[in-house]
């Protein structure tokens, strides 16, 4: 049976972000850690916003964090793309490493999400090339 082609926005990796998306394909949530001051950063970028260093190492995140804020999308935009997904939850998650990441909360009723709810990363291979990091209640 044919599955319909994936029609949602896909990340376009660039020289800054490519290691992140290579990581998710390998089921690792990778973050840059500054070689000079030790601060983690996300989204990926060429400079450490804390000390402006360009030296950084990609580390594997614990994948654990807690919900900082969240929304529940009820009205799908565009309708033809998301009509089967609503209601779905998008959240900002504070990772244990001290950075915040935007993602989906899966594996629970979107209306059951609460502030500070512990979550952990799961990996969703949406196409052969792209795996998205999502989060489920921990």
């Amino acid at each position, binding site marked *: 049976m044919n599955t319909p082609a994936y029609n949602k926005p896909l990340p376009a990796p660039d020289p800054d972000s490519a290691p992140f998306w290579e990581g998710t394909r390998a089921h690792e949530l990778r973050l840059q850690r500054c070689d000079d001051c030790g601060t983690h950063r996300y989204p990926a970028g060429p400079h450490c916003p804390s000390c402006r260093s360009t030296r950084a190492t990609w580390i594997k995140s614990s994948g654990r964090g807690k919900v900082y804020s969240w929304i529940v999308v*009820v009205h799908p935009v565009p309708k033809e793309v998301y009509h089967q997904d609503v209601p779905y939850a998008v959240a900002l998650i504070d990772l244990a490493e001290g950075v*915040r990441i935007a993602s989906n909360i899966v594996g629970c009723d979107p209306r059951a999400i609460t502030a500070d709810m512990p979550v952990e990363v799961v990996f969703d291979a949406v196409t052969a090339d792209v795996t998205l990091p999502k989060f489920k209640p921990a």
Partner: protein
Amino acid sequence: MWKLRDKYSISGIGQTAFTKASGRTVLDLASEACKAAAEDAGMALDEIDGIISFHFNDSIPAMAVASNLGIPAVMHAVDYTAGGNGANLIMLAATAAIEAGLARNVLCYRAMNGRSGFRLGGGREFSAQGITQYTAPFGWITYPQAMAMWVRRHIVKYGTTAEQLGQVAITFRENAGRNEAAMQRAPITMDDYLASRMIVEPFRMLDICLESDGACAVLITGKDRARDLRQKPVYITGGAYGGGPSQGDDLFDAIRWPDHSQNYAAYIADDLWGSAGLKPEDVDVAEIYDCFTYSVLMQLEGLGFCRPGEGGPFVQEGHLARNGRLPTNTHGGLLSEAYIHGTNHVLEAVRQLRGTAGARQIADAEIALTTAGAMTCGSAMLLRN
């Protein structure tokens, strides 16, 4: 800090009709509003030498308006890439340009077919490049979806209620009933608000502003020139633009913003009041950027009209009503008059200070606040007559 207190005046205002389908080009709308602003001031278009606009590639460049209106010597035709943060910013930029000698008389406008053409609320580019690769793949695409993340933090931190948000929408709709130019004038009740359909929780339809085709323009001149013109001058007495740390890589991105329960307003308050030598109690009428109900609460708190977290109760106590302590969005705002990206707020403030606001005039208004912005960056002005 902006240092040009009372040196410049908004000397003319102009606008088109606000509609859902103009059937006209954006160039036509922009030119009509600009020409009307010059005529309102009684200034010949030949005397205009600066034009400034802001947009998201959803409009036409300032130089196009200058060419279309046959303005002979344009020294300063400039476009800012900006959204809700831009409406007061371009007017402050006009004062800076004149002060620096780059121009003498400057038109500032915003023009768009925001309903029949490119709809800002309908989502951004679908390819997830740059910062968008960290948001759009998760179905986080539209501005209502972006801003719902902010109001959620206000609810979590302060217990802000649906009824408090609803009171913002109800109050501005009541004001729009007195404004013949407003797109939505039929009164709404709290039951109507609570029954309006959920779009993206915690937002209902009535938390979200209109989409409009139209244009607004102002003419900014030096104070001496203003006194020779047709209208009572409205002086720019204070102004500020800015935001906090980690403003993001574009206007959607606020992933690194430190605290989503407060927005840009908290960061520009000291500059704004300091530039004018005024304080919140001095404001007679306020036109506050209301792309969503919540943004009003965060600006009231950030600018010091109430303490952080008290925006909800402040609104519920009726202070924004026309007979309240701080009559706000007397034209109906973005929620009920039209979405001209905050420039329509400036036009309303000018009418209030001229005393020409008709059925919606606030008696003896002398000081007006205008703001523009909802998230990490924004602009504001204090105007006086």
